[in-house]
């Protein structure tokens, strides 16, 4: 190996170090930053049936109570799966819910839970995950509500709540 040959890669590699400076910005956040509270609506096939099936509601509405922005909630046309969220400010929060935005009464769902501070990454920062304790509901259109998984995280694929709609809906 000649001396010049030895020096060449050394010098080249030294200069390449400057390119590391290109990667010093904050990385993009690629994971959900808000915990997903995933809800599934179901109903009895008939009054006497014991078999439940997914219910695609015609125009379900979820409205968070005491939200910062007081505009109306979200309308979900023809869906049986919904994603809502829990309040990081308190260990309890309420959502209003109706099966159809047209001429059906609202039910109030009250959720009780524990908050757990959670670091996601330097790119995404912190969020809160939750452990559900219980759910209470009024019964205008809802027959009952059952917690299927108490852990509410940023995993969008895990369902935490089943809402059973009255059979006569």
């Amino acid at each position, binding site marked *: 190996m000649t001396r010049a040959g030895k020096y060449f890669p*050394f010098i080249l590699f030294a200069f390449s170090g400057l390119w590391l400076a290109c990667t010093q910005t904050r990385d993009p956040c690629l994971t959900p930053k808000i915990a997903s509270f995933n809800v599934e609506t179901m109903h009895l096939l008939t009054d006497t049936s014991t078999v439940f099936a997914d219910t695609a509601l015609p125009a379900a509405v979820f409205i968070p109570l005491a*939200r910062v922005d007081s505009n109306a909630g979200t309308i979900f046309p023809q869906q049986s799966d919904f994603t809502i969220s829990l309040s990081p400010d308190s260990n309890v929060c309420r959502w209003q819910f109706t099966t159809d935005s047209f001429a059906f009464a609202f039910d109030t769902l009250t959720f009780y839970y524990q908050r757990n501070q959670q670091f996601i990454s*330097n790119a995404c*920062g*912190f969020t809160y995950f939750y452990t559900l304790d219980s759910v209470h509901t009024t019964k205008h259109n809802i027959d009952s509500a059952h917690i299927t998984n108490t852990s509410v995280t940023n995993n969008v694929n895990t369902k935490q709540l089943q809402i059973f709609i009255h059979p006569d809906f």
Partner: protein
Amino acid sequence: MSIQSNCRYLFILIFSVLLISGANDVFAQAADTVATDTTAAPKTKKKELAGHQLAIGIDLVHPVLNSLVSDRFGYEFALDYYTHNDLYLIAEGGWGGSTVDYSDLKYSTTNNFLRFGFNRSLLTRDRPTDWDMMFIGFRAGFADVSRSPATFTVLDSVWGSRPGIAAGKTFQAYWAELNAGMRVEFVRGLFGGWTARGKILFNGKSFNDLAPLYIAGYGKGDKNVAFDFNVYVSYGIRWKRKNVADTTAVAQKTD
């Protein structure tokens, strides 16, 4: 394609060229060695003719990076001692830290670190005073990290933003490294060289409650695998081996 992607690809390209260049040199030298061996006498135990060498080095890459980025800093030093059979014992150390000042996350860290291990030269010496080398090596690393309390804000479009605080903490980080690089002697005793490092963090889960943006000596604290490199300028202090000196003295008396 983003500027970041361009930079990454350029960096990979340069690194690949260097590896190929280095490999060619090694193979060429190995071929020379094989050709010589065909006419050599039967194998005898190789006598160590090179003397002792203790080299002290300072890293130049991180001071340059410190001036280019504002969210982290680091300084690194290296000490290596030549034992025998192209094996060098290595001790490296330094300090550094990071300052995170995002709109939704703010904290700072400082840390010291130590790395111990060895380098094995891949080049056969041209002569006993030839100290140039391409090498591979291994390190075990340790860092003592101190993190300030972190303030953060959870941004929620439905319920509003909520601020919070994570308590400060002191913790340790442990990792292992595989290294490769080269070092050449510019003038007697004065070296320059680079070391590329691939690192695996062993205990990342123990500080998952807020992994530091940067651990000096390792890299990004929220990644279990990290890559890094250093450019060192070193100065070597040498002295003769006792057995080599004795042999020389006896030979002179005989003459």
